[in-house]
């Protein structure tokens, strides 16, 4: 089984990389990009029986820094 973890900066936290991407899109002529947030996607290949609670614990302990980041777990049985 697999899981996909998406880690994003929390909404109140300024994302300098997202801002740079937004400005680069603007300079390429892509108008109308009101905001860009850049995060990361982590794919986990898991032993059968691993629960969403296990993956959440991985996020809390290592995969995300919950001071600045939020995360979303999707399980793929």
């Amino acid at each position, binding site marked *: 089984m697999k899981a996909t973890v998406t880690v994003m900066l929390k909404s109140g*936290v*300024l994302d*300098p990389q997202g801002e740079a991407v937004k400005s680069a899109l603007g300079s390429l002529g892509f108008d109308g990009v009101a905001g860009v947030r850049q995060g990361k996607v982590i794919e986990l290949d898991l032993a059968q029986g691993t629960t969403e609670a296990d993956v959440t614990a991985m996020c809390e*302990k290592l995969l995300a820094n919950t*001071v*600045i980041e939020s995360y979303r777990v999707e399980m793929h049985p």
Partner: protein
Amino acid sequence: MKAAVLVFPGSNCDRDLAVAFRAAGFETQMIWHKDAVLPAGVDIVGVPGGFSYGDYLRCGAIAAQSPIMRAVAAHAAAGGYVLGICNGFQVLCETRILPGALMRNAGLKFVCRPQKLRVETTDSLFTNGYAQGAEITIPIAHHDGNYVADPETLAQLAAEDRVAFRYVGNPNGAVDDIAGVLSANRRVLGLMPHPERAMEPAHGSADGAVMFQSLAQALVAA
């Protein structure tokens, strides 16, 4: 009077930090990250700058999970002294020994230059050799030094006088110009600038030596 300097794969300021501790008179040992215990009688642990684990995942995130950091957390909890510089500050934040986090510089560039800092509190062994409000010059060299913390944490840091240094001319977007913070018991300091690179006039500044000397004087008396 003993210092221990941690060594992670990718640390690159560990030897400079050991030289600085020794220059101040500390008996100094290097400690590998896989060790699970600190040497007996260590007064202060130095968490050095560098790129532990190649900055994978987040700066300091993997190092924070290493066996030695559990020992460092226990040392800090028991009232031991800890000095985290640059990547070491990031590691201390990732272990939650210090509050907040360090993000990519607002200008997105690696910044490497002498940096003016203001000494914001002299109420710690790290800073009591400076004059309150003094402006000192210490080199910075980082890509992820943009300190962030939630408003409640910032209010608490201010109320408890725990901001040790602020940038004079913010190089990285750090909130409230914060360059270094102290733990609640004032015995753990994390800062992005490199005091171990400002130890003698030939370095361009000897302002960093003051920190190591005041630590040594206080700890030898203890």
